[in-house]
């Protein structure tokens, strides 16, 4: 029984859902960030799996872009977290609620 694309879809979906749950359930901003990275990776995995499945390397090129954006995002995001920590002395997103109506 060959490992078809469906397996990867399933795996990727699970990883994505876990990442999403991490974003939704954790209050530590850094872990939320890591969960986002997990979601990005699940997407990357699916891109690569489809590239393999379709025999087209373009999918892999897209992964480069995702990685680049992710790297930039992490750099900026972590800087923001540091800034928040400096003003709030906490990185608990429960404490960051200036937008509350």
């Amino acid at each position, binding site marked *: *029984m*060959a*490992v*078809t694309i*469906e*397996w*990867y*879809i*399933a*795996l990727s*979906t*699970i*990883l994505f*859902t876990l990442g*999403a*749950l*991490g974003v*939704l*359930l*954790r*209050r*530590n901003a*850094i*872990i939320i*960030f*890591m*969960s986002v*990275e*997990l979601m990005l*990776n699940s997407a*990357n*995995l699916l891109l*690569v799996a489809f*590239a*393999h*499945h379709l*025999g*087209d*390397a*373009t999918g*892999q*090129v897209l992964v*480069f*872009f995702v*990685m680049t*954006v992710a*790297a*930039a995002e*992490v*750099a*900026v995001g*972590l*800087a*923001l977290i*540091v*800034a928040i*920590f400096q*003003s709030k002395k906490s*990185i*608990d997103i429960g404490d960051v609620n200036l937008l509350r109506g």
Partner: protein
Amino acid sequence: MGNLILFLILAVIAIGSAIMMLFSRNAVHSALWLILNFATIAVFYIILNAPFLAMVQITVYAGAIMVLFLFVIMLLGTEQGSGVLATRRGQLWTAAGLGLVVLGSIGTALVRIGGSSVQAAAADTSPRVLAMILFENFTFPFEVTGILLLVAVVGLYVMSKQLRKG
């Protein structure tokens, strides 16, 4: 068959490490579990005929990004935090419900499709080919991404100056 077993083993490791990341109270542990996850995915890349990407995954994600994470965690000293269950109930159950919806939906779709997909011939995925694709078909996005990185660098520089002042 051997491929499937390998896939399943790796999938279990990936999912398990993701779950551990999700549930670890200690942020450092979460980061470490995530590194394991990324590594597993790098292995998947090799299996999927993307060795160059696997290398990049290891170096960029596990090597650069996650080190950055750990660095910040340790810098701020916020490794100890509340766990998943600290979240409010409504948020927790809604999120869990939605997760099940997503999984259920995709799962249903996969069951409907069945395992009838046909594998295409393996493509040449050498760095040279990738570079050809990148610079022939994605020149403009490439440039935009470069600008994005530049903006991020400038932004970080400004922010760091602000931080120093504050």
